[in-house]
């Protein structure tokens, strides 16, 4: 198929940036979206032009590195899918596709479609762990966990840290990401000891990074490639309230 691509180009963090238009032909519907960009980049290199910079690594929907805002939607049109899993079957001949980076105060653009998501690492460093040194652990089966709790904890832990939730929220809120980690550990016996401090530190760090408030619009859940549920936000709010009451 033949396509028109409208892609955000920005040389570096300081550059103002803007859209560039490209036309591309010979795209097969078996290609993944990123393979389509590979084809574009090969042609740009052929013309001695700079290829489009974008983040990607696993190309199978698990590392959370790919991050494109496609036709106004984080990770494009397919539900529960990362950009790298999106295939060109989703488009038709003659389409114009607009591709932008994540846009949020907490995620400054590095180059073209690449953004800086290190704020997420700092939020985890502020409390997204159980403080257990290597060698401290007792036999694993000494901790029994009801299957429903284990399953729900797993569902929260499936977050890939991609940041689509932030990118699709009009307030650039990181609540879905933060609540997924808080929820995972709050549901497990191992997470109880530091429960109160964890939620307080993580929320404080989230605010310090410049992410906005949650006003329950639900677009994070709708666009999350791992379909992380809004119920985790509700759980985190409860955790936060309880922690503050216990002060």
């Amino acid at each position, binding site marked *: 198929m033949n396509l028109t691509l409208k892609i955000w180009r920005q040389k570096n963090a300081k550059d103002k940036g803007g859209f560039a238009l490209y036309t591309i032909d010979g795209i097969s519907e078996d290609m993944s979206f990123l*393979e389509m960009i590979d084809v574009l980049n090969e042609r740009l290199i052929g013309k001695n032009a700079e290829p489009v910079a974008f983040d990607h690594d696993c*190309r199978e929907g698990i590392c959370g590195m790919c991050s494109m805002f496609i036709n106004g939607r984080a990770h494009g049109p397919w539900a529960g899918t990362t950009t790298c899993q999106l*295939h060109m079957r989703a488009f038709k001949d003659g389409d114009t596709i607009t591709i932008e980076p994540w846009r949020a105060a907490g995620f400054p653009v590095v180059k073209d479609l690449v953004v800086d998501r290190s704020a997420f690492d700092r939020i985890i460093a502020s409390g997204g762990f159980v403080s257990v040194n290597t060698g401290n652990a007792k036999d*694993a089966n000494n901790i029994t966990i009801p299957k429903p709790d284990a399953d729900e904890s797993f569902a929260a*832990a499936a977050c890939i840290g991609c940041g689509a939730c932030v990118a699709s929220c009009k307030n650039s809120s990181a609540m879905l990401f933060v609540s997924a980690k808080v929820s995972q550990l709050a549901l497990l016996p191992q997470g109880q000891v530091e429960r109160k401090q964890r939620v307080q530190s993580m929320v404080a760090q989230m605010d310090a990074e410049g992410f906005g408030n949650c006003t329950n619009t639900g677009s994070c859940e709708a666009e999350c490639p791992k379909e992380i549920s809004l119920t985790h936000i509700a759980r985190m709010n409860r955790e936060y309230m309880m922690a503050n009451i216990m002060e």
Partner: protein
Amino acid sequence: MTKLNSKIPAGDLETKWTKYKSSVPLVNPANKRSIEIIVVGSGLAGASAASSLAELGYQVKCFCFQDSPRRAHSIAAQGGINAAKNYQNDGDSVYRLFYDTVKGGDYRAREGNVYRLAEVSANIIDQCVAQGVPFAREYGGYLSNRSFGGTQVQRTFYAAGQTGQQLLLGAYSALERQVGLGTVKMYSRHEMLDIVMIDGKARGIIARDLISGKLERHFGHAVLLCTGGYGNVFFLSTNAMGSNVTAAWKAHKQGAFFGNPCYTQIHPTCIPVSGDHQSKLTLMSESLRNDGRIWVPKAKNDARKANEIPEEERDYYLERRYPAFGNLVPRDVASRAAKERCDEGCGVGTSKMAVYLDFAAAIERYGKIQVNKMNLHNVSKERILELGKEAVKEKYGNLFDMYAKITGENPYETPMRIYPAVHYTMGGLWVDYDLMTSVPGLYALGEANFSDHGANRLGASALMQGLADGYFVIPYTIGTYLSQDIRTKAIPTDHEAFVEAEKKVQEQLDTLMNIKGTKSVDHFHKKLGKIMWDKCGMARNEKGLTEAISAIRALREEFWKGVRIPGTQNEMNLELEKAGRVADFIELGELMCKDALNRKESCGGHFREESATEDGEAKRDDDNFSYVAAWEFKGVGESELHKEELKFDVVHPSQRSYK
């Protein structure tokens, strides 16, 4: 010829590690605070090592090229992690895990190392659970296990099809905790480009900040390479796009021997190549072989659709050739059998380079079980199949969805098409029992070293090895070296060795940028991949390997004359990053072919057509090849072979048979 000393402690297999631990020299806490350790890599091996060493009190600097340590390639592991817990009461033990691993590796690994791995495996599960890793559980609240290829017990722990993700996020959280405490300094989007050597010891690295393009010098009393495997030398593999050999290769060029470079694992169940645009291959977990049946049409060039081919015209070739193990033979055997059928012209799909993985029988079987469970009577065939599909969905839903997204086909209705793909590299930097390479102060952990899997790795054992190395081995073994080094003060990075090393890296970057050729990096990478896959892939022979070596040499020349890298080096430049990696892959490719040429026997993933039994099975040659091939760098394209003899005191090597 240098003598390779594996430093395996003396004494009984069962007590070596315990004795070692209680006699290893210690570094006192005050001294630890002034010792700096560089960890390159943040996958399972790197993150677990960096956090554990920081907990002990060392000052750690950790590097990765992704934008966050959480994205290291370990995140993609699907199936599970082995541990000798014997929670299922099915007769598992440290010995059995040890034995299965040595046998699975076709008797090309060290007994001492593998036994230690099996010993610490149980601690790994304890540690991960304590961190909050949500492993799958039974209704009683206890941990669940599944079985994996090449074993007869259930010892694999898992978290749906995302085990690597959950384990890595556990190790990452431990790492970030130390970052928060200030004991680890994390350098994301940094790529190590050389080792700095002072007085014959590794004392630091040169790294490039991938955002600004600037080179940086970092000092460390010791340097740990946890940089993963090199499967991407084939261009197409199941590895992440960024996985590369650069760190290990630069170390090799500084004197670290490369062990068994030709041992490559080709995984039998991956989604086949769909066209020239293909950028990577996707694994379909080995667990599918528990229920799926693999077949091709009996007739050559059969153009009919799968469901138009009647039962008696199908060839379930694994069940036919290996009645004892059937579809559950080890990976190397299953891969070769698929290739054999496709080479005979019986392959399926448009490319004819694929075989069917069929769930029809499983769907029907599960459907009937459901009917019994639910106590239903007079159930129609449709209803049985519907119930069966639901059961299969519960077990493998995420994999079936992944297949459907990629191929646009519905695997519940038509059999999946699969073909083998490059997946894992058993070869890597040669290390001794301490995990130290042949360069003092330079260590290699995880997939980056050659150690524990011999010539073939069993499923669910790489995660185990990476975490064993990082959590439970290196925190002890590094003491042997560092206890001798407590008087060494941090060496300032204006030392001439740092200046020289940086200059050398700078020159290579300049050279690459100044070629200004006409072909993209990928052009060369694809060419290299094709040579490797055709001549150093699933089957190898003398003629092909010799041809490959000259073809790779020619490609190397072409690359250094013809590569085009747009942009500049003082900015984020993804093509420049790739170019450096491909330059190293080209040199590695040649060494892999040399190693494959040298090893005239077949063993594990290495199949030499000249060394096969009459019915086409691999034939090992213990009299001549029971050794680790450790290669020393002697200049580009030149290498010298050193042999470490393998001694088996406990297990007795026999010809593997799965018939």
